[in-house]
C-alpha cells in the first residue's frame, strides 16, 4: 500500500474528530496529530506487517518435535511459547526488530502526512533531507545522507549475520 494512503487514513483516524484522536484527546487533553507520539503510532501501524513476516519465518523454522516433547514433558501452551519457541527464535525476532527499525528510519510519506514537519518534534531525518533539497541546501542534505549510510549498512550486516547462523 502506498505510504501516503496509509498516512491519509491515519490522518482521518487520528484527527481530534476521529476515534483514535478523540480517545487520545480524552485521555491526555491534547490532540495527537503533529506530535511525536502521533508519528510513533503511525510508524507502528505502518511497519507491523514487516515485523510479522520474519518473525513468522523464525517460528516456522522450529522443529515441531521440540514442541511435542515439551508437551509430553508437561508444559502448558503459554509455557511452551516462553520456554521453547521464544528462546529458539531470538535471532529471527532480533532480525525483525532491526528490519523494522530500518524501515521506520526510511518512512517518509506516512510521517509527512501525520506528523507534518515540526522542528524538534516530528521533523525526522528523511523529511529533513527532502526539505533541505527543496530549499537548495545541498550541503546539509549531503551531510545527513552521509550520516545515514553507515548506520543502515551496519544494521543490514547484523541482520544478515543473525539470519545466516540458524541454530540447528
Amino acid at each position: 500500500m502506498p505510504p501516503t494512503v496509509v498516512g491519509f487514513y491515519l490522518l482521518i483516524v487520528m484527527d481530534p474528530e476521529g476515534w483514535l484522536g478523540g480517545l487520545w484527546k480524552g485521555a491526555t487533553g491534547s490532540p495527537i496529530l503533529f506530535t511525536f507520539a502521533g508519528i510513533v503510532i503511525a510508524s507502528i501501524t505502518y511497519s507491523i506487517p514487516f515485523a510479522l513476516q520474519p518473525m513468522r519465518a523464525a517460528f516456522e523454522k522450529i522443529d515441531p518435535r521440540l514442541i511435542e516433547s515439551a508437551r509430553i514433558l508437561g508444559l502448558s501452551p503459554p509455557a511452551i511459547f516462553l520456554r521453547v519457541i521464544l528462546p529458539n527464535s531470538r535471532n529471527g525476532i532480533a532480525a525483525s526488530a532491526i528490519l523494522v527499525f530500518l524501515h521506520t528510519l526510511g518512512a517518509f510519506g506516512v510521517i509527512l502526512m501525520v506528523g507534518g514537519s515540526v522542528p524538534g518534534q516530528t521533523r525526522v531525518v528523511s523529511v529533513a533531507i527532502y526539505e533541505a533539497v527543496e530549499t537548495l541546501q545541498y550541503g546539509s542534505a549531503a551531510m545527513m545522507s552521509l550520516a545515514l549510510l553507515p548506520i543502515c549498512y551496519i544494521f543490514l550486516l547484523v541482520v544478515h549475520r543473525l539470519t545466516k547462523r540458524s541454530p540447528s
Partner: protein
Amino acid sequence: MNLQIRIRKPLPHFELSLDVNCPAEAMTVVIGPSGAGKTTLMRIIAGLDKPAEGFMQFGDEVWLDTKLRVFVPPQKRRLAYVFQDYPLFPHLSIHDNAAFAAGAKKDVVQELLERFGIGQLQDRKPDAVSGGERQRCAICQALAREPRLLLLDEPFSALDIFTRRALRDELRNLKEGLGIPVIYVTHDVNEALYLADGLLPIVEGRVDREWMQRSLARVNAAKSERAKAVRDPRLSLAY
C-alpha cells in the same frame, strides 16, 4: 499401574487395531517389522495422535474414551517419551535439558547425568556432543521428570553397536529400580529378547504371535550359523 489399550485407527495401508494390556512394573517390548504401526501406537499412548475410536486407561485414570469424548492432553499424562534422534532443546545446555521438566530436584538430575556418564559434559550445548551423548541426555530428561510411564521408541537405533549395547545394559539395570511400566519399541529380535518382560509382536497393525515364532526360529537358525562361522574363518568376516 497398568495400561489398558483398546484402539482402532485406519492407516494408509492397513488398520491399526489393538486390544492389549501393559502390566505395571514390567517392560513390554513392542516388536515388528518397520511400518507395522509401532510408532503410531506410541504416539497414541503419548496423546500426540488420536485413534478413530478407542479406550485407554492408565491405572484408574481414563486417558481416552472416544465414546464419552474423553481425551487427556499429553501434558497431563505425566509420562516420558524418547525416540530415535530425539531433539534436545538447542538453546539449553545438557544439564538444563535434563533438568527441563525436573522442577526443583537438582540432585536427582546430577545423579542421572553421572549415572549415564555425561556428568562432565553438562555445560555443553547439544550440538557440541555426540549422538550417543545426546540420546543419554534424552533418557536423563525423561527420567528426571519422574514419569509414571516410560515410552522408548527405538531409542538407541541410530547409535553405533557399542554405545547401543552399553545403553541397553544400563537400561536393563535401571528397569528394576524404576517401578513403572516401560514400553520399548524395536525391530531387533535379539534386543527384544534381552530386555523384555513381555513381548507384543505387531504386524500390519495387529498382534501377530506367529510372526514372532517365525522370527525366533530365524534368530535361532542364525545362531547356529554364527557358531559355524567361528570355525569357518571366511564366513566369520560377515559377523
